[in-house]
């Protein structure tokens, strides 16, 4: 029984650490209306940079997280420039960056994975400082970081620039007519988003104690699934901060579901399939229900059904 509880606690803290990435995906997918596929690459980039900084350069784990964030920001800038300066469709710009990051990440690490066995991490540092168990410190730090990011984003998207950024995703033509450089807004949005993704990659790398070239594969789908789950959980709440919280909560629930499914004996490799199915269903349900109610409501006699 204890084993199962431990597994769920681990899943919960993983979910919250990944939740920081989901916040990033929320910015591009929900606010800017861009499906940014850079995420798979920039998540791994954050992890790789973090590992290399700690292992090869003996960097402080917190400073390494900052480097991971910065690397994500740069990756976002590359996608942003491809999209805004060269007018490459956002989805393709993201794919180009993601693919090139695969090579970049291998170059950064020099091999396909780096273990962090002998080194300190923010989680070890925190548990040494406070005396709490390491497994709990992952949860506490995760919650702290996620809460800080939610607050920071809530503040930023309430400012003049942040409002202009939200409006850009809403109605680009109008925002331009009101004197906002919408291309610059998209660039900023992609940079902030991927900065969060990079930070999340760094956190996950430190908590699982290794960085791997594959650690970001499917991250975008996990992000979308978490957003969808969050919307189902907290769909009635409409304020902006509750939507941000819902994104993180969605991530936690996603990882809990995952833990349950794995406990039930499902192959871990099938999890990506399950995530994709969750997202596809979530996107398909509103469309199909509208179509079905339209065709059911049709009446050749000219009588409208209530």
């Amino acid at each position, binding site marked *: 029984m204890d084993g199962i509880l431990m597994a769920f606690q681990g899943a919960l803290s993983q979910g919250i650490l990944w939740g920081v990435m989901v916040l990033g995906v929320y910015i591009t997918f929900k606010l800017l209306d861009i499906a940014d596929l850079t995420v798979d690459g920039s998540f791994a980039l954050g992890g790789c940079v973090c590992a290399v900084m700690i292992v090869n350069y003996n960097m402080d784990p917190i400073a390494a997280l900052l480097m991971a964030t910065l690397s994500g920001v740069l990756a976002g800038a590359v996608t942003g420039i491809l999209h805004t300066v060269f007018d490459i469709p956002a989805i393709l710009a993201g794919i180009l960056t993601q693919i090139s990051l695969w090579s970049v990440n291998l170059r950064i690490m020099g091999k396909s994975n780096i273990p962090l066995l002998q080194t300190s991490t923010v989680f070890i540092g925190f548990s040494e400082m406070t005396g709490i168990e390491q497994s709990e410190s992952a949860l506490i730090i995760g919650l702290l970081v996620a809460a800080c990011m939610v607050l920071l984003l809530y503040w*930023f998207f*309430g*400012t*003049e*620039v*942040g*409002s*202009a950024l*939200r*409006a850009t995703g*809403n*109605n680009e*033509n*109008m*925002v*331009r*007519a*009101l*004197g*906002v*450089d*919408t291309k610059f807004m998209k660039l900023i949005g992609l940079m902030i988003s991927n900065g969060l993704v990079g930070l999340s990659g760094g956190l996950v790398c430190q908590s699982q104690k290794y960085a791997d070239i594959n650690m970001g594969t499917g991250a975008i789908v996990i992000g979308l699934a978490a957003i969808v789950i969050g919307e189902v959980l907290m769909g009635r709440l409409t304020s902006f901060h509750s939507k941000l919280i819902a994104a993180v909560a969605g991530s936690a629930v996603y990882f809990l579901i995952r833990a349950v499914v794995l406990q039930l004996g499902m192959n871990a490799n099938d999890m990506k399939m399950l995530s994709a199915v969750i997202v596809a269903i979530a996107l398909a349900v509103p469309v199909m229900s509208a179509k079905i109610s339209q065709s059911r409501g049709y009446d050749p006699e000219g009588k409208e059904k209530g």
Partner: protein
Amino acid sequence: MLTLKNVSKTFNKGTVNEKKALNCLNLHLEEGDFVTVIGGNGAGKSTMLNMIAGVNPIDCGIVEIDGVNVSRDPEYKRARYIGRVFQDPMMGTAAGMQIEENLALALRRGKRRGLSWGIRGGEREFYKNELSKFELGLQNRMTAKVGLLSGGQRQALTLLMATLEKPKLLLLDEHTAALDPKTAEKVLELTKKIISEQKLTTLMVTHNMRDALSIGNRLIMMNEGSIIFDASGEEKKKLTVEDLMKKFGEASGGKFANDRMMLGT
């Protein structure tokens, strides 16, 4: 206030779809001029407004607003001088944002946007006050999402947004054409009221010839990317719909006016 010198624009240059939309256009507006613009489909009315606003770059010529040459400035930079209302009520507002958020975005048109709060304390009262003048009841729904409003309400809101921060030039591109006749009339009344109160320099494209005649102090008629008729003051007051139809017939080489112009009378 506004000067266009030899402005030309050709779309899809060098392809089979080549379309000369503006042909060495010249126009000068004095401060406070309220000009109505008429002409058939494809005459270049909307293109002229878009070229003034900087939606697409012009091929040649000069656009000057209040003595400043803005010919090569992008749309978002010119926005500081220009308020715009579009034909499509969906285009002028952000549907997923609140009424007051939309207004706050509009109040900052052309200004530097920083990291201070998007809506500051005293603004809400100001917005309420301005909205209540419209008598649409919107002043009590400040935090409602704009997507919940009707087309007419959204167009009225867009009009307020375009003029909240007084523009040097107001561009109205058939802004009542997508509304039902009653709503169109109401939005037009609001338009006239705001323009006369703020003494705005305005270009208004319309398909309704009666409106074009009864509103404003000057009327221009366009055909094939040029201005073919320009009447102001007393001359404009004496014009009738029949006069305009005749002018239009002459200009288009005897071809009869198109259906929309007929219906507009």
